[in-house]
């Protein structure tokens, strides 16, 4: 276990995913920039972040749970392959990747609506 330091893990990930790793990191960066921009726009419009955050958390959680049962298919196995708690825990961790992406998108969309609604009521 001690052998799995962050540098080794990075190389293993890179060798496993190739260019997909950079695409994934690029997507994460775009989503992060989108989230920060949305927060700034909400602040500028004087709108609270609470509602978009709740929407993002709810939809993100649903997406993560749904993806948890789809993760075994990514490993060429059926959902029945998950049996022990550790299986579910790992599948959930992997499902957090699409789940977080969905949550980020929902947050940005909800923030946009909030800002435009705010503008309409002014």
């Amino acid at each position, binding site marked *: 276990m001690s052998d799995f330091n962050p540098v080794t893990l990075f*190389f293993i990930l890179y*060798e496993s*995913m190739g260019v997909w790793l950079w695409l994934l990191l690029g997507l994460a960066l775009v989503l992060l920039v989108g989230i920060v921009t949305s927060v700034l726009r909400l602040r500028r419009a004087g709108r609270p972040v609470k509602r978009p955050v709740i929407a993002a958390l709810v939809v993100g959680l649903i997406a993560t749970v749904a993806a948890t049962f789809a993760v075994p298919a*990514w*490993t060429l196995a059926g959902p029945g*392959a998950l*049996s022990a708690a550790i299986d579910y825990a790992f*599948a959930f961790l992997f499902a957090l990747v699409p789940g977080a992406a969905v949550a980020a998108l929902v947050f940005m969309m909800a923030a946009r609506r909030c800002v435009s609604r705010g503008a309409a009521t002014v």
Partner: protein
Amino acid sequence: MKRREFLIGAAACATAGSVMAGGVSAQESAARARIVIAGAGAAGLSLAARLRRQMPNATIILIDAKKEHHFQPGFTLVATGLWSPADVTERNADYVPRGVEWIEQAVAEFDPDAKAVVTAAGQRVAYDFLFVATGLMLDYRAIAGMDLSLIGKEGIASIYAGPAQAAASAAAIDRFIETGGVGLFGRPAGEMKCAGAPLKVTFVTDDKARRKDRRGAVKLIYNAHNPAVFAVPPVHDKVKTLFAERDIAVNYSHVLKAIDPGAKRATYATPKGDVTLDYDFIHVVPPMRAPDAVRNSPLPWRQGPLAADGWVEADKATLRHPRYPEVFAVGDIAGVPRGKTAASVKWQVPVVADNLVDETAGRTPQKTYNGYTSCPMVTAVGKAMLIEFDYDGKLIPSFPFIPPLEELWVSWLIEEKGLKGAYRAMLRGRA
């Protein structure tokens, strides 16, 4: 003064100088040694990558005629029908590190007394240090009636021979499940690479038959070479239980010695004499030995259980040759108990590389190899047991949260998604 001692002395001074000047890190050596690596497989490439980084002034020469590189642990997944041969086939050229010379020939002769090897084309290559990493040879001819060309025909499978044969084996398994009958599995008596693979093929055939609702049509028999299905007692117990639960019969102390493909009969040597079994499907795992060039050299053990098959004599902790101290054996060819897996290579390579670096830099080599070997034992599609053990057969799990004797999806995840990336990172000397 011998050249090796001179090199070590000179390099120690140079290394000390550059460490003080901040030029060379503590894990490096400035030695100008001439290093030859015979074999550009898992061990050879991984060593070349590490030594290139850690010994910037050394001349490193890789010798291997093979241009393709095969991710052999993936052969099991090809035989399951989940991966294609292309998923396990790469080019050695993509992994030979910059600054390493690659002689694209086989070593035909090892001459450790003269500290040289001779290639198949007659090129003599001298060395200060030699790493023997030739892997092993699959001796199909040792089974009377067996031939490589039979794989995929007449109900004969064998996943060891290569990606094409693993794919042909997958088709043979599917045909067997369709037609039904008796399926024979087993392993050779001697040392072999990935001793778990014959068991994996048995489990996968059972699982595929169940998924196709054809389990009642096939009878599966595992022929163990000795009184155990696996050398590590707790693993033996677990596999025995799983076999019993899955109605897989076991014959103990049965070693395949001949097959008659026309009549579909296999002959096994047993303590009570030869036994012949009829089959509709057979998974043949050939005896494994050192390649001829190694076997015919002075390098193998001269006595003991590892002598007959030509495994290179090596200290089991340092992998150093006791009679030729400038020679090391790494990977499948090393004459050490167990340890014929890519996972073993992952732990062996840093030991020999760091020890050579230390030695040539004038420091005392400290690293030892504990016999670590590992095999995610696939027990069905989507399930595996992550079995890791050492020389003493003690289970040594890398991840405390993954119980080694439980059939888990997370262990399958490591087999299907994790191993290839880790293997490639190892080839680049990064894992």
